[in-house]
């Protein structure tokens, strides 16, 4: 027994020593030319990893390209990363603090506002601009983070804009009635469908039914399938990510009972990794930032897509965010102070980036007005079938 007690103490002591070691972590050495440091707290292996990873990889390429052309006002861009390991809140916060210690001028964060919150808090509390590459709600900004939230921006498309674009596309295709299927597990999914409904009604469309289900292990998708199958509509509209599990189940379920109603999804439904073998997916549409399948209207996009092996079009938000931040720094005459950059960015109006023109407003710190790619999947093969820009940002 005494031995056990001692063992425990010894173990604790060793661990303590190890932690002391880690306390002496490396300090970022400052280079003489004073580069602009972008710190990126990304998710290396959790639920956001498939989105953060390609965005980060593509951003690196973009940063190299900017530096090759002489950098920003003569200063090089330097990227420092920290892995939040599945966006564990304590690791995320520690990462953000670490990046601050390493003198990051701008801090990039993960693709979900709730998971990004620890990082955003650390950055904006210290007057540093916080940028998300692909958060899709209107919450990355003052709406969610109050006055200091002025320093928070996202280069994702705001759900209100995306849902509105989806409605416009559906209406243009001649779909007059829609069945809504809301995945309630995250706010972005809900907002997209709400925005679709608002805009679709405005255009004169009719909503046949509202169904809800829960991805991420909820076992009621089959119930939603049966209900959707009994509703007669021109299109079934949903917003859910393939990786969250319910999408494959829902499409397989619908198609194997012989229901071939078109399904329209948001950027969340991008990618081919989730396509079931049999029956093959057909009559499936989604809107996205860019095509990751090599047929994007923009050559630059296609080149990047090939280099980073992106699973979804979200990868383009990484370099797009870099472009946006570079423009902001230029317009701020080289300042990297958070509030200065924020003031500039709030007035972005159709600022060109690799993923098209982006706009912000003092109220909306997430992109609207971007040109969406519409991709259709037939027999498991995706193909760009058009582009669309939302005329209005839907009110929800």
């Amino acid at each position: 027994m005494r031995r056990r007690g001692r063992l425990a103490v010894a173990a604790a002591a060793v661990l303590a020593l190890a932690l002391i070691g880690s306390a002496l972590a490396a300090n970022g050495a400052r280079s003489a030319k004073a580069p602009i440091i972008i710190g990126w707290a990304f998710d290396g292996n959790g639920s956001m990893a498939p989105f953060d990873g390609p965005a980060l990889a593509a951003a690196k390429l973009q940063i190299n390209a900017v530096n090759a052309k002489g950098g920003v006002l003569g200063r090089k861009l330097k990227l420092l990363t920290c892995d939040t390991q599945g966006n564990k809140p304590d690791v995320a916060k520690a990462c953000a603090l670490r990046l601050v210690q390493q003198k990051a001028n701008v801090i990039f964060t993960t693709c979900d506002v709730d998971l990004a919150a620890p990082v955003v808090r650390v950055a904006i509390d210290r007057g540093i601009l916080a940028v998300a590459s692909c958060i899709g709600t209107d919450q990355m900004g003052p709406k969610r983070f109050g006055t200091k939230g002025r320093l928070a921006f996202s280069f994702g498309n705001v759900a209100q804009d995306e849902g509105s674009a989806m409605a416009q596309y559906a209406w243009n295709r001649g779909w007059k009635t829609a069945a809504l299927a809301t995945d309630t597990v995250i706010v972005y999914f809900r907002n997209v469908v709400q925005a679709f409904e608002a805009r679709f009604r405005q255009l004169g469309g009719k909503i046949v039914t509202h169904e809800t289900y829960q991805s991420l292990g909820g076992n009621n998708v089959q119930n939603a399938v049966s209900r959707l199958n009994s509703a007669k509509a021109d299109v079934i509209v949903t917003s859910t990510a393939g990786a969250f599990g319910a999408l494959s189940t829902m499409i397989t379920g619908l198609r194997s009972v012989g229901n071939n109603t078109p399904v329209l999804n948001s950027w969340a439904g991008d990618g081919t990794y989730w396509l079931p073998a049999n029956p093959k997916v057909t009559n499936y549409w989604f809107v996205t930032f860019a095509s990751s399948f090599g047929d994007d209207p923009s050559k630059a996009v296609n080149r990047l897509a090939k280099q980073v092996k992106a699973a979804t079009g979200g990868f383009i938000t990484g370099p797009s965010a870099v472009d946006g931040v570079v423009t902001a720094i230029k317009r701020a005459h080289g300042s990297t102070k958070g509030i200065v950059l924020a003031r500039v960015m709030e007035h972005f109006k159709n600022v060109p980036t690799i993923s098209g023109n982006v706009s912000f407003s003092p109220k909306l710190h997430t992109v609207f007005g971007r040109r969406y790619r519409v991709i259709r999947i037939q027999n498991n093969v995706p193909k760009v079938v058009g582009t669309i820009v939302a005329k209005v940002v839907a009110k929800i």
Partner: protein
Amino acid sequence: MTVDWQTIADAFGLGGMYALMAVGIGLVFGVLRLVNFAYGQLVMAGAYSLAFAYERGWPVWVGILLCFAVVIVLSVAMDWVVFRPLRTQTPAVMLVATFAVAFLLQSIALLWFGSLGKIAASLSSLNQPWTVGGVDIRKISIVATVVAAGCLLALVLLLGRTNVGLHMRAAALDFRTARLLGVRANRVIGTAVLLSGLLAATVAVLMTVQTPLVTPDFALRDTILVLAGVVLGGMNRLISATLGGFAIGFASGFLGGALPTNQSQYLPSFLFAAVILVLLIRPGGLFTRFGQQAAERV
């Protein structure tokens, strides 16, 4: 409330699937007195095997063979590395150990295959329905239920009528005495673990029919529900455990259909409230004879 025959058909299908999972969990409990929380990760591993085969374009039957091989190896390894050394420990330690194993397997899957998920090769034609009076009854519902009933029957006969089964029960009740009588206890328990592995692999094959995307948390929620169902039904007998599994699956499917759609997100609350209520009224199990208490290894 919209309760129709379609809802009942869907609920029945879910019940059949959960009953099949319950047979495997109930068998391990019956023989090892162990609540194996990592059972779902066995199913997950099997499903990833199917996905592995699909990614390489192998025929479905090769994937199924691979699935069985992987799950069986994994379950036997689990028995050797974890269950055997802990056989005499308290239920809390054993349960937490299975948590650790589950957590570990899930982490490995996450690192190995990523969080996007992989599509599994499957017997997807089973997803097609027979339409009876306007109600779509998916073939998988029938298959799952029949397989569950078949496995249950086979195991009940094995446990009740054969010497191997007798030895299994004896080893479960009193490991040491069974060995003193000449029962090769580690071997018979290993057999039970192997059988539960077979069942897990079967579950993996059938579950991917309706849920073709395999993620690291594949079958996790289902395992939790089935565990609740098995305790609810009564863990001491395989039949009551299986019925418990069926009941919770059916209840889940039924409530999912009967709840207004905007309340569907509260389904877990309704379900677990029912579970708690039943446990308070019949702590020994819904399908056990009155007065029998579920007894875990103490």
